[in-house]
């Protein structure tokens, strides 16, 4: 459950109510920043990627962690490609026999 969508904060619209404009794939919607606002100024969140659920930014997406997950996937993918290439080579050899 719990549809959560990555979006980017583009502007603060109402600092008193902690509201900001977020953009998801070219679609804009006002979201509440209470859950991701530390004690610092709201403006610091502009440009950040957040996870949005029912009109609330629920988490700032950790770019380093995302990169780490993607790196692991990339390594696996490359290893798999090597395995597939080897298997293809093997098949070609066997076919040529």
């Amino acid at each position, binding site marked *: *459950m*719990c*549809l*959560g*969508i*990555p979006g*980017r904060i583009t502007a603060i619209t109402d600092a008193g*109510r902690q509201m900001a404009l977020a953009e*998801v*794939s070219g679609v804009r*919607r006002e979201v*509440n920043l*209470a*859950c*991701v*606002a530390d004690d610092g100024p709201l403006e610091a969140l502009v440009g950040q*990627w957040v*996870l949005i*659920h*029912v*009109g*609330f930014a*629920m*988490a700032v*997406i*950790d*770019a380093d*962690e*995302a990169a*780490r*997950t*993607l790196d*692991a*996937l*990339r390594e*696996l*993918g490359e*290893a*798999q*490609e090597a*395995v597939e290439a080897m298997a293809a080579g093997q098949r070609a050899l066997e076919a040529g026999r």
Partner: protein
Amino acid sequence: MKYASEFRDPKAARALLAEIARVADGLGATRARPVAIMEICGGHTHSIFRYGLDKLIHEGVEFIHGPGCPVCVLPMARVDEAVQIAERPDVIFTTFGDAMRVPGHVKSLMQAKASGADIRMVYSPLDALELARRNPDREVVFFGLGFETTTPSTALSIQQAAREGVRNFSVFCNHITVPEPIKALLDDPHMRLDGFIGPGHVSMVIGIHPYDFIARDYHKPIVVAGFEPTDLLQSVLMVLRQIAEGRAEVENQYARVVPEHGNKVSLAAIADVYEKRPSFEWRGLGEIDASGLRIRDRYRAFDAEEKFGIGYAAGPRVHPEPEGCACGAVMTGRIKPTACPQFGKGCTPEMPLGALMVSSEGACAAYWQYGGARAAAE
């Protein structure tokens, strides 16, 4: 889409599937003796079917679809009460679209709307609060549904209403929690499960430690997962590796969104506004101790149950579920949706009998919509 499409890479998915097959073979998992992994969250169920992962994955890995769809586990009696509130002439009843078609004993919210109730779909509880500001002479009630992911949004909306003195706003609270039903499932002697995929967005709020008991007390692995296809496959692989290595730990595949200790502001708002109910009724699972939330006394002015004198506020209730409905057995993983005698006969998405056929996240509706039923028959 950033942070979404990168996690849909077919090459990485193929690699993960190959590695899953290797580990599953090593475990001796077969179609007849599969490793059973429960994805707790309905969002994961939806992703599995949307991307066809159930058909791509090694046949020795079986997904058991868990109870993590708040609409599916909503008891009919609560829908009846929602309809009762919505049909008051002074009320604007607001809800997420998900709840519109859930059947009550008499009617659904969709049918109540057709017969004249002022029911509006909103995207956020803040939109309901805004409606209350604009309609000071009407009572605006929000249908508070969902697990810990959604609970902070209604808590923060109630806090805001209190701060601004918006008196005509209230929440009909049906918020429920994830750890308690998992414990109930694990205590069920019929339960046959080897590991869990943990709910990513619930965990973004509560962190990963509320699942410690699963590893510590029940010795089952659990991996908190994201919702993109490679997220899910990577998490399945992590569960399988734990099993292969004889480990039972709480691991976090979704670290880009889920902090170890959750979200401080959300947890504080939940604690400020809500307290545990002694027990709460789950459709198909019955009453589960301490699994539901109610609004604390200090915010009782915003509690629709208090305001309209219904629900748990009106005393204990027992409402049997429809006869022949096997939602409970499906939700505990005892049977597949297709094994329910009502599946596709007395219970279809057009005329749902049980909750799992209502929401597109329900295991039965997903089977139906994405062809699991027919594929199984083929």
